Structures are given as C-alpha cells and as structure tokens.
C-alpha cells in the first residue's frame, strides 16, 4: 500500500494500547483525509489487545504487523532493520511514531537509513502535494518551529502525543491483521543489556493524581511533605529537575521534557516556577493546582487553581485537609 500515512507503534500500556496510539492516530487520520491517502497502522512485535478494534474506530485502511522473536522488547538495531525493509517494500508517504524514549533512537536512525527528513517533538503535520509542513516544539515548549519538508523520500516524525487531543471516535468494525514479512536473520543487537531496569510499582505516567515539588521546597527534608500529600491524595510524588540534579529524589521522579511525560487528572505543583521544560511533562494534565509564593510565577498561567503562599506553611495544612 504505497503512499500511505503510516503510524508505527509497539508495546502495550494502559487501556490495552501502545502508548500515545490514539493521539498519533488522530493526527495521522486527519492528515490522511486531507491528502486523500490511506491510513495504515503498523505494529512491531506482539500486538496489544486493543489494536484491532481501535484501528476500526480510527478509519485505518490496513493493519500491518511485523512480528519476529527478535522483536520482543523492541531492540533498536532489529527494529530499525525491520522498519527500513518495511519502508522499502511499502514506500509510505510518511512514518509517524509516538515520541517515547525508544523512539529517540529508532526514528532518527530510520531516517538515516532512508536518507530522509526527521522531526521530533511534533505537534502538527500539514501536507500539500509533495510538501509537508511539520510543526515541532522547541525551547522546551517556549516556541514552536514549522519545518518544511520537500521532495521525495519518506519523512519520519515523532509525535508529542500529550500535545494532542485524541478524537476517540466510537463506531467501526475491528480490522484483520495483515502480517508483513521482513528478513531479520542477519541482524543482531549490538547493545547488550546486562542489568535490566527494575520497574518498581506504579509509574508516574499512569498516575491519576501527581503531587510534585520544586526548588521552592528549600531543603531535601521538606520533600517528605510532598510524599505525604501525595499519599493523602492517593497519588504519586514527582519533582522538577533541580531536585533530581541535587540528588534529593531519584531520577524516575523527574517530570518534564527530559523526564516523565505525564497526563494525570490532577497535577499539584508546589514550589515549581513553571518553566516550559517542566510544563512539557505535566501541561497535558486535566487540571493543575499550583502553590507558589510568587504571584507572578509562570505556573499560575497554566493552573486552574492557585494559592499564593509559603509551601512549608501550606503543605502540612493540605495534608491535614486531604486526610479529613
């Protein structure tokens, strides 16, 4: 199916779908409609339970799967080889990914193989004939840059899924999966995992309520108040980057552009200024409640609720009120 708009995903996260799948399909679907191309969804490795049904809802024309024992855990060398062969066979018009940690390796390496354009942090894609105008976030979100991609070849784009609202269409029949054959016999992974990461407990990315602390907490011992409030609200504790850099908390607490990209129902930001790079990881929250002693702090521009005050005076009271 040449000239298609291809969405490539792998893995399974909450809701039985790969992370960001609905957001990327929403962007890709409207792009496909605007240029009259087919929307194709390609999954790598074992297919998540909800894919076939979701493909139907989003008007996917074909559901492709590349599965191979070597693709378990999506090692980059194997994934890039599989995708390069796929693109050679299928000649897509563009390949779109959800931007996650692994995509940062796979998308640009694929572009190098295809000798084609690559854009990360994408928030919008428009097309006109052979030309794509791809909008991406820059300076952590302080600006957006529109890049023009012209000419032949298959551009590769990694979509910043939390910047997009999924369409969530209702009707649609499940799609049958078509297996696409590629030859992975000669590729072997060069990066050897000697100690895998131990996923411990729930992830910030999945949390419904997050309470995060920033430099305004003043001292490492005050972070306990953040943990206590998070617990009282039945949520999880996060942090801005300076707390990670200072070694106050482990790096898996870092919310932001280069940390966790979260989408909770409620995000409570305490002593956090609201720098764009932090907001990149929490701006998609349904609602933000901010506590900051500076009434001019940027965080209040994003917040639905705000208290101008001292975090150390307010936190114990919030913990008490939350427990009552």
């Amino acid at each position, binding site marked *: 199916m040449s000239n298609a708009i291809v969405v490539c995903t792998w893995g399974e996260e909450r809701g039985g779908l790969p992370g960001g799948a609905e957001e990327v399909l929403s962007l890709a679907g409207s792009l496909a409609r605007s240029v009259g191309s087919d929307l194709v969804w390609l999954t790598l490795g074992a297919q998540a339970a909800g894919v076939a049904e979701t493909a139907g809802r989003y008007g996917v024309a074909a559901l492709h799967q590349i599965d191979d024992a070597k693709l378990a855990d999506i090692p980059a060398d194997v994934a890039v080889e599989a995708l390069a062969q796929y693109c050679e066979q299928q000649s897509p018009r563009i390949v779109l990914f959800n931007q996650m940690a692994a995509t940062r390796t796979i998308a640009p390496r694929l572009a190098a193989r295809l000798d084609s354009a690559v854009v990360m*942090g994408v928030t919008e894609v428009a097309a006109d004939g052979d030309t794509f105008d791809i909008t991406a976030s820059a300076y952590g979100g*302080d600006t957006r840059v529109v890049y023009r991609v012209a000419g032949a070849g298959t551009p590769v784009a990694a979509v910043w899924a939390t910047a997009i609202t999924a369409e969530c269409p209702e009707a649609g029949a499940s799609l049958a999966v078509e297996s696409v054959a590629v030859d992975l016999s000669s590729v072997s992974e060069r990066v050897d995992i000697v100690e895998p990461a131990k996923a411990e407990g729930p992830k910030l990315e999945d949390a419904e309520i997050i309470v995060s602390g920033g430099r305004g907490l003043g001292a490492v011992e005050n972070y306990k108040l953040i943990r206590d409030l998070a617990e009282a609200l039945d949520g999880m504790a996060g942090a801005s980057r300076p707390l990670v850099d200072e070694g106050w908390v482990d790096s898996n607490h870092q919310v932001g552009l280069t940390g966790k990209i979260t989408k909770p129902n409620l995000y409570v930001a305490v002593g956090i200024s609201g720098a764009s790079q932090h907001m990149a990881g929490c701006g998609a929250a349904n609602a933000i409640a901010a506590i900051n002693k500076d009434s001019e702090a940027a965080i209040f521009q994003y917040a639905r609720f705000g208290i101008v005050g001292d975090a150390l005076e307010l936190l114990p009271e919030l913990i008490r009120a939350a427990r009552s």
Partner: protein
Amino acid sequence: MRIVICVKEVLDPDAVNNYAIAGRLEIGDDGMSLTQTAIPRLMNGFDEQALEAALRIKDTGVDCSLTVVSIGEDPSKILKHCAALGADSVVAIKTDAGALDGHGVATLLLAQIEAGGGADLILCGRQASDDDQGVVPALIAERLGMPLVTFARAVEASGSSLKVTRVVPDGDEVVEVVCPAVVTVSNELGEPRYPTAAAKIKARKVKPQVTSPADLGVADGDLAPRIQMIRQFVPTVQGNCEFIDGGSPAEQADKLIARLREESLLS
C-alpha cells in the same frame, strides 16, 4: 581510546524561559529568529555533561585523547572552555550552523571525525536545548555503522568495551557495548566540573583548529537540508487561574481541597 565530543552553542534556555514567562519572547521580521539580542549564547548543557563523561573516563586512568568539535561561525568561546576543562584538542568547523539540518550537521561531524583519524567513542548531549531535536547522535551512529546508546548517567570504559548506565522509563539499565560506539549523555550524569583559574588562563591562548566544509571535502550539495525552518512562533498560554485567597494557610488548604473535590478532581 580516541574520544570525540560534539558540542553546540545555543541561546541560554533559562533566559529564553524568562522572556517567555514575562510574555516578552518575540520573533523577528523574518518570522523565524528570536529578537532578544540580550540572550547570552552558551554551551548546550547536555554537551557540557558529555564532556564531563569523557573527563571522568580520563580520570579513571584510561589512556585516552579528548577531541571536542563544534560547528558555527565562531565557537571559539565554548571551545576554549572545553580546553580549560581538559580537552586535548578543540576543533571549529566554520560555517553558518543555522543553515544546516541534522543530516548536514552529522555530515560535517563525520567528515571531521574521519579527517581526525576516527573515534572509538563519540559522546554527545542527549539533545540541544534550542530545537530539542536530539537526532544528530543517531544520524552519526547509523551512518558510521556504530551502535547508539542513549541517555547515559554513567559511562565506564574498559578495554575496547563500554559499560553504560542508562536512564530509561523503568529506572536504570546497565548495558555493554563494544567500541566504536556513540553515547548520548543526560542530566542525571550530574554537575559538570568548573575549570580552575589557572587552566582558564592557559586556555585563553588555545587556538582552536579551524576547518571548513570545503577543507573537509564536503560539497554544498551534500549539506542540502532535508528540513528547513519556515516559521517560528510563540504559542499562547491561556491563563485562567482561580486563586484561593484570604484567610490562614489552614483555611486556604481547606478551601482548595474542597474545590478540588467539588470539581471531581479528588475523590
């Protein structure tokens, strides 16, 4: 071990943030560039940490040479800083970096690495803080046929292999890879060192080796960008905050929790 560190000069992201927060970040008449000439230029933070990773390898007694490469009209300020920190040689590829896309940057860096006799380890920051793209290390790795390890918090060299601790979504992962390889460094590596006063004075006299695309045998056509910026704009943020004011901290806390419950944001 030949280590090459690729560094980029960027506009100070904190200054850009401050302008943005104050609502004073503006785009010039060309529709593309930031007009605030007062924003200082400095070395991309993650690149400082990439150099720090190389210096830590050197600290462990590994026999290695550190070469820092940067592209730009005049990257000598940041290159002198790298020399003061302990880089053995610093190279400037003189050209208008703004006219290049990631492929063009990778083409020039590759040409310089080859001209300099190759590399066993290429260290880069995980992304640049201006365009946040982070594609150059991957483009270099793929074109040199080297493996790529991203988001390092620690890099250890032993013999011809590397042990890298990576920051991944599930925590820390330890990987091993045989050199030559490309590694990108993340902020979790920790604070980069400062040069000593004596080293700074000595570095003032350092003259970066200056080269150009033509010197490296790279034709203009090889640098033709696949993506071109046509516009930059400042997205608007809709401020709509309900401030809980008045009363003691206890009263404010009660009110906030009550409002969050009313809005079903808390159970």
